[in-house]
């Protein structure tokens, strides 16, 4: 039993650390906020956090297989533009619209997967190129910002549940329960971890490599489109913003790293990425609470990010053999 515990701890170390760091930061934030932590403050913070958390989860699926998805931001923007056309009207229309947006997200992920698996191109270049295509599609849908969304649904998902709990957090929980946990516990999920640890070893062991990658990329597209839907619910419009696409792609990588997911693949979890994302958001809010001049905020955010990734160098201290550094 003791042995099991050690393994469990080792596997979840990144996630636990991310959770602890987030908890500390959030406590400082909540206790120092001038207006106190009332429901409205919490809801706004939760909405921003949930958006980044979903896109970070999207990135996690691909990073676990030791790939990288630089098109998550573009898929998010595409979903945003599509949603501003079709997530409107009667409840039935709206529901079909939501399903349509999610299907398009899956399709984008599947395209990435097919090119990476059967084209045997590197994920980083593949997703740069497909990202341009997805962004082009978004521009075709919305050359100028505009459109509409079913406001009842949008307000319900970005507002509060009875009792003041932000609805976005329950949405996040639902995503974890419906998408992440089944994936993590399935054979495919294990295969994705195996591929990330060592593709050759996974191949030799008869692990379904192709299916694992396909599912990972497709789920990444699905979650990126969910993030796009959420953007639409927050802003009520569709906008093909290149700045949004690149910013969220980069933030998703930062959140994944802060959440203890290894960029080499095979280790970490989407739960960790969620806390990484929430942590990243809290950093920005902390600077606001402590009245840091707005001018200096981006610099502090950058320095905190740099310091956080430097913590990854702590493994150098435990090194027994210098050769372990060179893979």
């Amino acid at each position, binding site marked *: 039993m003791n042995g099991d515990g050690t393994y469990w701890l080792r596997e979840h170390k990144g996630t636990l650390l991310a959770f602890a760091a987030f908890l500390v930061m959030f406590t400082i934030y909540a206790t120092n906020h001038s207006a106190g932590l009332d429901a409205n403050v919490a809801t706004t913070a939760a909405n921003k956090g949930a958006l980044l958390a979903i896109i970070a989860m999207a990135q996690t699926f691909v990073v676990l297989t030791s790939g*990288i998805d630089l098109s998550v931001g573009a898929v998010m923007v595409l979903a945003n533009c599509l949603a501003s056309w079709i997530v409107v009207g009667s409840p039935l229309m709206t529901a079909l619209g939501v399903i349509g947006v999610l299907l398009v997200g899956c399709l984008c992920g599947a395209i990435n997967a097919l*090119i990476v698996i059967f*084209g*045997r*191109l*590197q994920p*980083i*270049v*593949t997703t*740069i*190129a*497909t*990202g*341009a*295509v997805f*962004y*082009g*599609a*978004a*521009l*075709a849908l919305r*050359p100028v910002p505009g459109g509409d969304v079913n406001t009842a649904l949008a307000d319900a998902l970005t507002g509060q549940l009875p009792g003041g709990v932000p609805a976005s957090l329950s949405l996040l929980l639902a995503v974890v329960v419906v998408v992440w946990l089944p994936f993590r516990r399935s054979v495919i999920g294990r295969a994705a971890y195996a591929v990330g640890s060592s*593709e*050759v070893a*996974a*191949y030799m062991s008869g692990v379904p*490599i192709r299916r694992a990658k396909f599912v990972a990329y497709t789920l990444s597209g699905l979650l990126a489109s969910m993030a796009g839907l959420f953007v639409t619910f927050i802003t009520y419009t569709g906008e093909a913003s*290149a*700045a949004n696409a*690149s910013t969220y792609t*980069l933030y998703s*990588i*930062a959140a994944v*790293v802060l959440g203890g997911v290894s*960029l*080499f693949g095979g280790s970490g979890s989407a739960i960790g990425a969620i806390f990484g994302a929430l942590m990243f958001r809290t950093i920005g809010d902390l600077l606001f609470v402590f009245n840091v001049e707005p*001018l*200096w*905020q*981006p*610099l*502090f*955010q*950058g*320095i905190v*990010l*740099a310091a956080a*990734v*430097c913590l*990854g*160098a702590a*493994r*150098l201290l435990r090194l027994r053999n210098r*050769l372990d*550094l*060179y*893979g």
Partner: protein
Amino acid sequence: MRRRIDPAIAWAFGCIVLVLLVGSLYSSSFLSPQYLLQQLKVASFLGVIATGMMIVILLGQIDLSVPWVVAVGGMMATAATGWGPLGEILAIPVGIGCGVALGLVSGVGVAFLRIPSMVVTLAMNAVAQGLMIVHTGGFSPQDSSSPAMRVIATGDTVFGIPNAVLVWAAVGVAAVFLLTRTTFGRTVYAIGNRERAAYLSGARTRMVVTAAFALSGGLSAFGGVLLAGYASKAAQAMGDPYLLPAIAAVVLGGTSILGGRGSYLGTVAGVILITLLQSILSVMQMPEFGRHVTYGVVIIAMLLIYGRGRRPSE
């Protein structure tokens, strides 16, 4: 010693010819010397930036800090211009120096702290952005470029060849010499192939990696200086459109994104191809969305022809 021509480079040059032929069907001015020289001039900015990116990619790493290091180069050079006559002389070195400094920090993070380059350079990009926001907001520096910057970016002295093209040619010759004729270059290829072996062979891997990132930062900043000279002023988002094209140009030129394999001639081909593609699509008045889609599809198609990896079973 006879060398085989790398099929990737042949394909890339073939595609350049194809793009020009398709363009000339639309309008014969695509084959005029003026148009081609103008395109080479525009390409030289991307070419200088892609040179640094290529060295880093040859190591098997990547530099995502290009957008804001380009901006730092341009903005610091113009700021130095505002310091007076001495500043005007020092403008270009100051811009490049700031880029080298940022690249040096990234290099130390990658080589000594062993943090993945994707994360280090991402963080450096954020830090550079923060520094520039403080710099412009707090000190309101000058944003118009010095006469020297304008001359090297827009002027032409010899036989009507734009100065920017000459600058790119100089950078290119230096890069080829560095990569093929020096210990540094050999070590870069060795590290890209297998860092462990390079280390065990006694190569000073950490110094080389650090220097490569410093070089990439300096070249990105130099690209920013040229861009600021071309547009006669520096702006915050000036580097944003250069990150992905730089990576795409290097990869289209046959350099393996995993490192250790690639030649500078390929990068030249990749840079020209990307620039021509962007230019011809916009001259043909293709709507913006179509340009993005075509751009992405062409990159994928070309890589599917010659850039494929191995099966896990091989």
